[in-house]
């Protein structure tokens, strides 16, 4: 419902923007004056940080557009009908829906949140969210290109899609019958997510769009900061020492995928560069990374209740480990 503030509060509230604007200007001036890029580590950090965000922001916005469209223009009865689908069908259907949604992990989080809030079974929404970044056509194509010309191309493409779908459905199954209220963190008033009766659909659409964008954007900035710092200060060669040690090498590359926070549309090229590792660890990197990484840890913790991130790490980790060990036995 609309809440009306007294006129004095309304005009006075713009004052809250002043310290923020002043802080930003001071930051810009400081960067100009001190040119921290002379310190090469800082330059490296800022480059990785900005490029992660420049690439992710359009996708976050696309996710927010889809999410706002769902909120404003898809009638509730569609979700009621979807929720009536037979239970055993819901998770696979949600997983395969990811095939048709060519947005990587940043975009699928706001959409899943909206779907769950609108009454789709939360388990199905979560399955969709996790499956989309692994199963979408762009990701499948880039995986094939990265491994083209090697014997392992089909193992990687099919293994990634298969294990990704399996892991996403497993998380959905563990989440099970939890209600949306149980699973989603409430966003507080500042998120502007309340409806004004009678407001035009256009205004409502842009309201939800901005709300989702700023909500996700905050966590994305935090996640990109941590990921860029890790990329800058942790040399990738430390992984080399465990290459060839069974099982430990799987854990090592899953850990690396977590630290690097690559977009699922490009991570196959990086995975293919770890030649000292076998196909098992490379596959583990490609299955685990799009579902669990530094920036997603922030996005998930802002979107879902406590414990959800732990569930995703444990379930996706277990499926990835078991699956890649099996692939190593069969294909290796």
């Amino acid at each position, binding site marked *: 419902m*609309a*809440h009306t503030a007294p006129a004095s509060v*309304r005009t006075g*509230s713009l004052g*809250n*923007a002043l310290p*923020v604007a002043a802080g*930003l200007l001071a*930051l*810009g001036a400081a*960067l100009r004056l001190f*040119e921290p*890029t002379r310190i090469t580590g800082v*330059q*490296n950090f*800022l*480059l990785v940080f900005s*490029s992660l*965000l*420049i*690439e992710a*922001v*359009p996708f976050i*916005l696309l996710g927010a*557009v889809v999410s706002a469209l769902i909120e404003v223009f898809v009638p509730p009865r569609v979700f009621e009908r979807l929720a009536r689908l037979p239970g055993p069908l819901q998770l696979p259907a949600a997983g395969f829906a990811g095939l048709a949604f060519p947005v990587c992990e940043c975009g699928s989080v706001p959409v899943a949140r909206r779907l769950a809030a609108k009454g789709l079974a939360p388990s199905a929404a979560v399955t969709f969210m996790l499956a989309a970044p692994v199963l979408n056509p762009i990701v499948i194509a880039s995986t094939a*290109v*990265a*491994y*083209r*010309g*090697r014997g392992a191309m089909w193992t990687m493409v099919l293994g990634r899609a298969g294990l990704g779908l399996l892991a996403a459905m497993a998380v959905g199954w563990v989440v099970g019958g939890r209600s949306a209220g149980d699973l989603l963190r409430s966003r*507080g008033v*500042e998120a*502007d997510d309340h409806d*004004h*009766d*009678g*407001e*035009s659909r*256009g*205004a409502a659409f*842009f*309201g939800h769009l*901005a709300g989702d964008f*700023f909500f996700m954007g*905050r966590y994305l*900035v935090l996640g990109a900061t941590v990921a860029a710092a890790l990329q800058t200060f942790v*040399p*990738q*060669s430390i992984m080399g020492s465990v290459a060839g040690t069974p099982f430990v090498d799987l854990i090592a590359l899953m850990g690396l995928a977590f630290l690097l*926070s690559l*977009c699922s*549309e*490009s991570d196959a*090229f*990086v995975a*293919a*560069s*770890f*030649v000292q590792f076998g196909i098992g660890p490379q596959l583990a990197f490609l299955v685990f990374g799009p579902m669990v990484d530094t920036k997603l840890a922030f996005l998930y913790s802002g979107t879902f209740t406590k414990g959800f991130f732990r569930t995703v790490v444990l379930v996706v980790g277990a499926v990835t480990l078991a699956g890649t060990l099996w692939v190593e036995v069969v294909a290796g």
Partner: protein
Amino acid sequence: MSVQSSSQRRVARLAWAVSPRLWSPARLADAVALGIWAGLFWYLLPAERSALYLSSRTSWVVPLGAVLLTLGAIGRLAGARSPAPEPLSRRHALGIGVIIVPVIAVLALPPSALGSYAAARRSSFVGSGYIASPDDVASGELSLADIAGALQSQKGAQALARRAGSRVSLVGFVTKESGMPADEFVLTRFLVSCCVADALSVQVRVVGAPPGNLKTDQWVRVEGALYPLENEALVDAAEVVHVDRPVRPYLNP
């Protein structure tokens, strides 16, 4: 809202339509922040700017982001006058501030590209994905990516070995390894397939360089004869000249 009858909703809409409208500070702040991000993407539109952050394969996100963010800002501004304007809470202002920090970082700093610091910490490139066949290597001009890619497969390495002594002209920046003699350095370039976060290094060893004036991170063009060794390539330099950083500092697949 769904529990209301349609007539109730019509009344609400009518009341909304006739009540006086005031600018909502919260919505204005949203529109300004979206506009600032839109501005960044318009600024990045020329290739020489976006090439510092993105691969040519992914640079399409820049026009997409510019248009979407601009539409978002205009849309939010168009609906910013409301009979029930929301105050701008301190939390909301702070959240928006956090999102603008990266824009400030990009605009305030001089443009730069990954250099030797990153070369020491990142994985190196393995090119099988980019080299369709050893035929690419068999004839024509050899690029840095061709050479690095060819060395990853036996067939490629054999094809490259047949080119021993070929004249190459390669552009990259200087990195040095400890213990290298004065007339040697490593010529490095990064290969970026999506954004700078996935950069992989591509390197060849240069020997016989005219000593002096080869500082780390200096961009150079090396001309000379290529000699593939077992798993690295060596260029016997005939000439090493300083060049400006290329417009596209990263190689793209």
